Structure formats: C-alpha cells, structure tokens
C-alpha cells in the first residue's frame, strides 16, 4: 500500500512540476531606432511575462507608458502621437517556445529557443517568429531575444517631417528574468 501511495504521490508531484510557471513583472524590454541623424533608445523595466515550462507557452504584456526616453518630450510624443497609449495602453505577445522539452529546467545552462506567436502593438496583431535564448540558473529563467519591428506594419504613422529621424525598422531587445512561481 505504502509503495502505491508513494507512486501516486510521485505521479502527482511530477505533473505539478511539469506545470511549473516562470513569471516576472519587472521584465526589461528596450527598443532602438537608428538613423543617420539620430539614435533613439527607450527602456521599459515593467514588462510582465509568464512562461509555462511544460507547454512552452509564453506571454508578455508591456505597458506602453512605461517606456522611458532620455528626452521627456520624445516620451510624450511617443505616447501621444505614435503609440496612442491612451487607446492602446499595452503591447502583448501570445506565443510558444518550440521544442520546450529540450530545455532542462533543472540544469543550469543556455538553451536556444525558437519563439513564434502573435504580437499586438497599437491594436494591430501580427504573426512573428524569432530566435532567442532561455538561460536557466537556479530557479530563474532569463528570456532573451532580439527582433525587428516595422512601425508601418502596426499602423503607426510617422509624418514626413520626422521620417528621417525614426527608423523604418525598430530593433526590439527582450531581456527578462523570470522566476518560478
């Protein structure tokens, strides 16, 4: 009987371990616009994210208002004129890490991660795919990736007056430390 109870318990525990979530509310996301005239980098340290270690599901919520700029006026224009953050307060990503079973969450290391999913910015949702890494260290998983976003794809209008100062492709860098929950 004891053995059987243990077996049942072990099954139960295994299952719950598989369903383990990694989570953060202080994820770091930056973006970088580079043109011959100006280079602009903005920083957000308030991204929320959850990763399901069993299924590889990965979601991000990024409050637009939390992007900080070196120039205060640029930050205002970013919110008011480009992202319209009063109407679209968050960017979201719903996706999946492919082949999550190849990541051993119990063993520290850097694991490559192919991520695909739907990215919603400025109310427009598009399919995206990128290659990133998952770095496991103790009870943390660092999700890191770099990909390009075209403002035009998300219906973000850039007037011709400032077109020379804002890149057609913006580089987005994700570097978020998720902890077991």
């Amino acid at each position, binding site marked *: *009987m004891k053995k*059987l*109870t243990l*077996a*049942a*318990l072990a*099954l*139960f525990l*295994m*299952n*719950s371990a*598989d*369903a383990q*979530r990694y*989570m953060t*509310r202080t994820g770091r996301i*930056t973006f*970088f616009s*580079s043109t011959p*005239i*100006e*280079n*602009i*980098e903005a*920083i957000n340290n*308030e991204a*929320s994210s*959850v990763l*399901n270690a069993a*299924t590889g*599901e*990965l*979601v991000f*919520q990024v*409050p637009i*208002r*939390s992007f*900080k700029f*070196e*120039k*205060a*006026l*640029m930050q*205002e*224009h970013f*919110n*008011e*004129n480009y992202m*319209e953050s*009063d*109407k679209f307060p968050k960017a*979201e990503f*719903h*996706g*999946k890490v492919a082949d999550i079973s190849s990541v051993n969450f119990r063993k520290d290391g850097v694991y490559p991660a192919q991520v695909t*999913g739907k990215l919603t910015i400025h109310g427009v949702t598009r399919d995206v795919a990128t290659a990133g890494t998952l770095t496991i260290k103790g009870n943390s998983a660092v999700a890191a990736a770099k990909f390009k976003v075209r403002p035009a794809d998300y219906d973000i209008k850039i*007037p011709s*007056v*400032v077109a020379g*100062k804002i890149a057609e492709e913006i580089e987005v860098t994700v570097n978020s430390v998720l902890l077991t929950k």
Partner: protein
Amino acid sequence: MRLPPIPALLLGLLLSANAAYSQAAHPKSPDTTHAGEDLMAMLDEEADNAPAENPFTIATFKATRVINGHSIENVAKGVLDFRVSHRFGALNTGVKNFFGLDNATTRIGFDYGITDWLMAGIGRGTYQKEYDGLVKVKLLRQRERGMPVSISYLGAVGIQSADVPVPDGAEYYFSNRIAYTNQLLIARKLSGRLSMQLMPTHVHYNLVEKSSEPNDVLALGIAGRFKLSNRISLTGEYFYQLPGNKLDGTTNSLSFGLDVETGGHVFQLLFSNSTGMTERTVIGQTTGKWGNGDVHFGFNISRVFTIVKPKGFEGTRNNIY
C-alpha cells in the same frame, strides 16, 4: 485496508489530472490555437495594483502656456524651455501700420524643471519693460482611475522698469514697481482631444494709479484645448475679472490660438486683446476690446533642451540632437 494496485494508480492519475486542471484554471485551457490565453489572464490578475496600470495623465496641454496664461503642464526635470513670444500691434491700426505688424512687444524667457513637480522661470518683456519670475508647483495629478483633476499652483512676480512720471518732491520706491500673482490651475483632460482648465487668480499691485482702484485684482480664468490632429490643436483662454476688484478702464482678456508642434518646437499662433505676456499685464491690465478690432496677432515659440539627462540611460546608444 488494502487497495488493489490498479485502482490506486487510477486514483493517483485522477488526482494529478485534477491538479493539472486546477492549475490551468481556465476552461479554455492551453491548446495550440489559443496559446497563452490562461497565462494572459494570470498576468491580468492583481495587475490593477501595479502603478503602470493606472498612470498619471500626460499631455493635457501641449505647452506650459495655454496662450498668455499658464497651463497645467510643467517642463520635465532637467529640461530647459526657451520661449520667445511676440504680440504685434492692434489689427485696427490699419494698413498704415500693416495691421499691427509694424509694432511688436516681445518677451524672452527661460523655464527650467528643477524636479518633475517644480519648475521655475525668468523672463523679460518689452511691455512696461518688465522683468518677471515664476514658480509652478504640481499639487495633484490626474490619473486614469481615481484622481479626476490635476491641480498646480503658480506664483509669479513682475517688476516693471519703465520710467514713470513722478511729481516733484515725491519719492518713488522700488517696491512700487512690483506686482505679485497667485494662481491655481485646475485642469482635466476630458478625452484624448479635449482638455479644460479653470484658473482662479489673485494679482496684487503694490501701487495703482488712483486711490479709488483696488490693489488686489481677482479673476477667474477658463481655458480649453481641442486637438484637431496629433500635432495641431485649437486653444482658447478667457480671464473674467470680478467686478469691484479690477482696475479702471481695463477689459477681460480673451484669446484664441493654434498650437502647432514639430518635434522639439511648439509654435503657438494667436489672436488676443492683450498686449502683455505676464499674469500682471494680461489678467489685470488688458485694455483692448475685441469689438473694436483692438486685437493683436502674436505667437509663442517654445524650444526645449535637455540639460540634465535622466538616470538609467548610462550605456544606451542614444545619440539625439
């Protein structure tokens, strides 16, 4: 008691399946087509407490001035705002004076953000050769949920240095040249396009022309902004002087403007019956009448410079001019 092995295993499976189900929480639990939906719900929970979820309202007005008077906006910490304002002569001076453009009064000023809630400024205007100084303090800030209005206090002082006729034997003290302004700015951004503001104002003149005139002018201002597009807004501003608390021969200041924003600049084009550009001259000493065409075309130009960079940008690739 002794359970046969198979039912025990089944029980174990059931338990674990149940646990997995309860952790997945939502009935529309993970499948590939709805990837992430339950996780998204997880993030939404308790998110209401995060400050990022209920931010302060921004950009109630485009600039720190609506037209002549102040708006609820401050310049950000470490930012210097260089402002040049012009008011041309009155339109009704006719074609001989090119409808006022032959004459102009000017104010040049600098405002600086000491903190995100405190700004200070200095200026010099040609009207009455006035030097002025101001502080603007944010007291309350509108939020998306909760606080419905933003409230700021403006304190200003004006020192006119124009020559004044002094009767023989009379002494003219320096303090005679000084006037003070206390003003509350109460503003609400009603929608993405429409903002309104009330400005109860007290202006104290150390010296007035006649003994029958009050030294304290009381006025209630009202101002509004309507965005025509992301970069162009219509503005209006009116100061109503309370009867019995106004100087002789003065009228209430009424102005209409157009804000045009291009990157680091804001251009404010305007028509106003006021010639001055400070609270003391606009609110208490306006004499023009709209009905007579005694109205001035004018503009404000604002250009901001970041003097002290905010923290947290060390090692970034910013390269902005």
